[in-house]
């Protein structure tokens, strides 16, 4: 066995950490807001009274141990689940009951935890479809799809960006796992959404690919005008690129703050490393 170990090159956190002052100034307006969300699955409360404000132009991460309700919260924000109680607002509009496909038109794009692509279509087709979704041409069946030059050009741009140029004409199913995650990202980016919701983008990725992903997300962030909501397990990723972090535990909000605040927070530390005693328990037990 090789036993080779890759250490993701950690950049100096100070380069990208955003001061608390900055964070507060972002909060003056809100692009996505969750109000008192609650989700029950047959008696089991997965998300319990969670409220969340996400400022435009920021990277906002949601973390927490397994089973904390992160993914459920994420699915409530994207509309995959309907909340038992509570509301979700996007740019001031109540979208709690807006259909999934309408959300894409409003400017929300989401990725999936399990790679979720169109396996038997080519990479280009996958991306072109996503570009076409927000375009009038979807109801044109007199012309060949690939004769819509602008869509194809746009698709190629994004394929280039994520680094899949050589594989553009292969069926998506033959891509390696990392390639599929890149394709997933390309499908998301081609529609140019204002708000990107990423569900564990590093899950199943080889560790040498992670810095590349951090870079891509960082590029997206630096271009401005894009907001990213991230559910993620990999702390390197979260601490490196987030403006703000929300920590969940047992379906509830445990803490929220800048990366510096969160990494200094004893309660969070305890929950993560499995704090069973002391203040940590008191901190997690609301009510």
């Amino acid at each position, binding site marked *: 066995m090789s036993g080779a170990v890759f250490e993701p090159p950690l950049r100096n956190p100070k380069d990208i950490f955003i001061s608390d002052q900055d964070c507060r100034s972002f909060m003056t307006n809100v692009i996505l807001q969750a109000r008192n969300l609650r989700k029950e699955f047959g008696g089991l409360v997965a998300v319990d009274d969670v409220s969340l404000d996400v400022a435009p132009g920021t990277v906002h991460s949601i973390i927490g141990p397994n089973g904390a309700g992160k993914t459920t919260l994420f699915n409530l924000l*994207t509309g995959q689940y309907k909340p038992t109680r509570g509301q979700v607002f996007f740019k001031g509009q109540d979208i709690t009951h807006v*259909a*999934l*496909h309408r*959300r*894409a*038109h409003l400017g929300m*794009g*989401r990725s*999936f935890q399990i790679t*979720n*692509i*169109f*396996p*038997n*279509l080519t990479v280009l*087709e996958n991306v*072109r*479809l*996503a570009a*076409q*979704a*927000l375009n009038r*041409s*979807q*109801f*044109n*069946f*007199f*012309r*060949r*799809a*690939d004769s*819509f030059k602008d869509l194809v050009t746009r698709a190629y741009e994004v394929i280039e960006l994520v680094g899949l140029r050589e594989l553009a004409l292969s069926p998506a199913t033959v891509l390696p796992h990392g390639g599929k995650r890149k394709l997933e990202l390309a*499908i998301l980016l081609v*529609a140019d959404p204002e708000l990107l919701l990423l569900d564990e983008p590093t899950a199943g990725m080889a560790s040498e690919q992670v810095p590349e992903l951090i870079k891509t997300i960082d590029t997206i962030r630096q271009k401005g005008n894009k907001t990213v909501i991230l559910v993620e397990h990999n702390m390197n990723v979260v601490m490196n690129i987030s403006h703000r972090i929300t920590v969940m535990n047992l379906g509830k909000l445990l803490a929220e703050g800048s990366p510096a605040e969160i990494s200094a927070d004893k309660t969070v530390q305890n929950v993560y490393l499995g704090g069973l005693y002391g203040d940590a328990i008191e901190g997690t037990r609301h009510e």
Partner: protein
Amino acid sequence: MPVSWRRTLQSNWFHVLVLLFLVMFPHLVGWITGDSPLGVGGRPRGQSVFWQLIFIELFIFAILAMSYNLMFGFTGVISFGHALFFGMGGYILGLVLEKTGAASEVGLAAGVIIGIVVCGVLGLIIGVVSLRLRGVYFAIFTLAVAEMFAIYIGRWPVTNAEDGFVLSNLPAFLNPARDRLTYYYLVLILMIFTFLFIRRLINSPTGSVLLAIRENESRAQSIGYNTLIFKLLSITLAGMIAAGAGMLQVILTKKVGPEILTVSFTVDPLLMTIIGGVGTFSGPVIGASVLHLSERIFNREFIIGSMSINIGQNWSLILGIAFILVVMVFPQGIVGTWAKWRAGKKTTLE
């Protein structure tokens, strides 16, 4: 322009050859057997005319199978109620022609238009009502609706219940009992038109959405497609094409009866699609040809030495067994298996 023409020809050389063969076919048979394609002794008789009939049936089945494939193979929607559209198309054309007292040309035009529109609307209604049902539930729902119609119309006094009625008000040029060659070319043209239409549709932006729904419906939704609308479109178009096939069928047999609503007009296109290759353009046509021609060829008594075996009598049994074998051994059908074999050969060469 000539360049693009050449390219089109190059990539479609096989189709062009098949087309040329089909256009020449009645004359070829006539030339070999000495029977005129127009018939013998002023009546539609002889080998050429006989084979025209078989090929017209084949074309109609091919159209029906292609419509089924549009829904099943390209959109991923399994319906067990396709016979409903085929039968309703036939019934509506028959009713308009025979029961309204319209002149034959007017009746024909009106019947075709009304039939196709009604079947489209029917598909739309069934879709709106049932598409929120998942997988098996949807398949069963469509089967139930189709059987309801089949049973009801089979006992409906207005259309003579089980006996059905005869089409006597057909325009002369369409009467296949008189001039079969014209009808042969008409149905051939319609089959080619259907083939090209479906190919263009699937290669269009709309078609790529249908494929996306087949591949991964929830993802198609999340990138911004109202998948319900597209599935409705697919079902409605498939229903309209099937209705057209049903009309061609009743004109050919000059009779409208409840047999055109039976479940075999769902099963046959399903078999043809699977045998030919699900989700391929030529699969349904090839499946229809294989099934229909082999039925015609083997449907008679064979004498081997002193033994005589009547395959025709047990034809459906053999067909059923063959179908099971295909499903188990070649689930991708003829075209799919062929394509896979060629792709495999290519990659091993590289």
